[in-house]
């Protein structure tokens, strides 16, 4: 820390983005976002516990355009973190470390997170909107 003259390794932006590194940082970012998002889970539970008036107020915010956009983002973040978390557990078991396999599981996670998000919202709207 005190020694500012020591050589530095090249910083991240000199590297070409690859699916492995990009997905890794997205796992962290979605994790942090979901951590903050637990405040919304808390708000929802508190609104139901608080009674009809406060619930209606919160439901109106959640149902607004901005509310829905935020919830859509959280839905994708949740499914991404879930699917990529399963990918990490698969690695923890010692499987799937070949480059080809890592790339394939990576794209599988990306596609699955989008598909699950679309399906969840389609079913939710189909059941009552």
């Amino acid at each position, binding site marked *: 820390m005190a020694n500012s003259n020591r050589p530095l390794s090249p910083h991240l932006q000199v590297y070409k983005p690859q699916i492995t590194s990009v997905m890794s940082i997205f796992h962290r970012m979605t994790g942090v976002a979901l*951590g903050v998002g637990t405040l919304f*889970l808390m708000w929802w539970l508190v609104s139901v*516990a608080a009674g009809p008036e406060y619930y209606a107020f919160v*439901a109106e915010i959640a149902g607004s355009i901005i509310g829905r956009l935020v919830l859509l983002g959280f839905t994708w973040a*949740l499914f991404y973190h879930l699917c990529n978390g399963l990918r990490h*557990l698969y690695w923890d078991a010692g499987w799937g470390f070949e480059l080809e396999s890592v790339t394939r599981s990576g794209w599988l996670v990306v596609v699955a997170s989008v598909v699950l998000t679309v399906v969840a919202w389609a079913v939710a709207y189909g059941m009552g909107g």
Partner: protein
Amino acid sequence: MSLNTPLKNVRGLGSAKDGTEHWWMQRVTAIALVPLIVAFAVIVIRATGADYASASALLANPIVTGIIILLVVATMWHAKLGLQVVIEDYVHGHAAKLFLMFANTYGCWIIGLVCVLAQLKIAFGG
């Protein structure tokens, strides 16, 4: 000559006094969260657009209450461990790091406690 006892070597906790506990609990909570998140998604889908009566009836269901409480505990535990690693990796100032580590621990406990209390009120306060 090492003054380490064989017991210390066996415990393998090193200078951090923590061993693999952090890494392990991150995995234990992660595996618990897989079915819990799937169940949570179903609950949220059913609660979408619900009025107060149906939302509170849904959450007051005993199975839903159990799922929500398990979900909150596993989630806040998992979030506390994960956010801790992010702080350790990216925040280098000693004071800032210490502050954020405390805020993370307290924040996760508070959010978890408020969620559980709200859920218990919904389930039993009716």
